[in-house]
């Protein structure tokens, strides 16, 4: 346990110090959201309609951005060997990594979303759904990404694998997430989509660590 918490603290500290993490996400997020109006033009209602899409797309991107560094760095500098030869079961390691990744990318995103929503003139009533959907959806992204990162670790075409594996799996999440928000905007009930998201993330918490751990053992070979 103490080992796990140490790992978590280290990963968070590294994220804060090296910039892949909250700062990057924040930066990208704000930037991306600034970029679309620049390109599309200022009409509020138009922006409002693509707001969910933009915010969710950014969520995925800022997640993607930081995946390849999740194990890559530890692998390169030999930390991974030591981590795996410790007392802690790999599944737990992976889960911790996923948690750290979520805390440093998902959470800042959830906190920032309302601000951006205001900047993009998203109607107030949709705000809650947006935050909820992100809160339920981003963990899935992190967990999927971890599996991808583990599988693609040390492999030829690593990042390629990562992108190819994560994107198709993540796209549905994206569609449900932004879909939920849009439903609220058009006055429909979004509970169904949110429930699905919640269910999927529970499933992911169980399945992904096992898959990722198996992949990791292969990687250090």
């Amino acid at each position: 346990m103490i080992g796990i918490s140490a790992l978590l603290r280290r990963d968070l500290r590294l994220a804060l110090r090296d910039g892949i993490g909250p700062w990057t996400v924040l930066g990208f997020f704000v930037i991306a959201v600034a970029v679309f109006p620049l390109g599309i033009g200022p009409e509020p209602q138009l922006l409002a309609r693509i707001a969910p899409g933009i915010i969710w797309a950014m969520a995925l991107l800022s997640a993607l951005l930081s995946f390849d560094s999740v194990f890559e760095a530890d692998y390169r500098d030999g930390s991974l060997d030591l981590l795996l030869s410790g007392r802690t079961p790999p599944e737990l390691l992976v889960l911790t990594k996923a948690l750290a990744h979520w805390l440093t990318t998902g959470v800042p995103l959830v906190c920032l979303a309302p601000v951006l929503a205001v900047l993009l003139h998203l109607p107030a009533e949709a705000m809650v759904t947006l935050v909820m959907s992100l809160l339920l959806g981003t963990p899935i992204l992190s967990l999927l990404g971890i599996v991808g990162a583990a599988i693609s670790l040390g492999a030829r075409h690593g990042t390629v694998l990562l992108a190819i594996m994560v994107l198709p799996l993540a796209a549905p999440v994206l569609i449900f997430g932004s879909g939920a928000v849009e439903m609220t905007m058009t006055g429909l009930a979004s509970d169904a989509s949110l429930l699905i998201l919640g269910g999927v993330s529970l499933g992911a918490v169980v399945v992904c660590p096992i898959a990722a751990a198996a992949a990791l053992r292969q990687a250090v070979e």
Partner: protein
Amino acid sequence: MVVIGQTLKRVAQPSHFMQISGRWLPWISALAVGLLAVGVYFSLFASPADYQQGESVRIMYVHVPSAWMGLFVYALVAALGGIGLIGGHPLAFAAARAAAPIGAVFTALCLITGALWGKPMWGAWWVWDARLTSMLLLLFLYFGVIVLNDAFDTVRRGEKAAAVLALVGCINLPIIKFSVDWWNTLHQPSSVMKLGGPSIDGSMLVPLLLMALAFKLGFFALWLMRTRTLVLAAKTRAAQGRMDVSSVPILEDAQ
């Protein structure tokens, strides 16, 4: 001209700088506080409400000066950075480094007051018009400069990098300034600083200028303090003896 150059050179010796700034700081600070008090009084009580904007016009007395300062300080940071890069004078870097965060605060203040003002005026906290956007970008540039300044193990490298960024970012200043003329923005065009004199009523112009002056003096006071702190910090770092004095650029007086 030459004379000014010489005096500047002399002042720029860290030792002289510490003396002179030490002597002036209290007066400047006092003056700034005084002016601020007067300015606040004028803008809150001794000036009329706007016939269409009502009381909310009073936001202007914070908004506009902070906007001006935001732009001015950035220009200053860039200029100092340039001097540092060309002349390699450590004090210039220190001064630039000291100014940046203050400028960022002014810029943020302008954005916030603007947003507060925007809600009643335009019915929205934020619109993506050229001026607002370009001002937001200015804030990002400030952040970039600030972070860059201490992103490296070697103090000097951070300062150089930050200077480069500050200089490159200058193109944003005219964009902000003239955005209102180039694009048709929600934001109103210049009415004070423009050719053919201000087109704003004296009863509002006076407090505006008072506040502007107070802000400027306030900035100078803070700026001096921060610069002095940085010089002293460098001194102490040297005193800790982990390195020898010659490797702390800021301590050697340029001959």
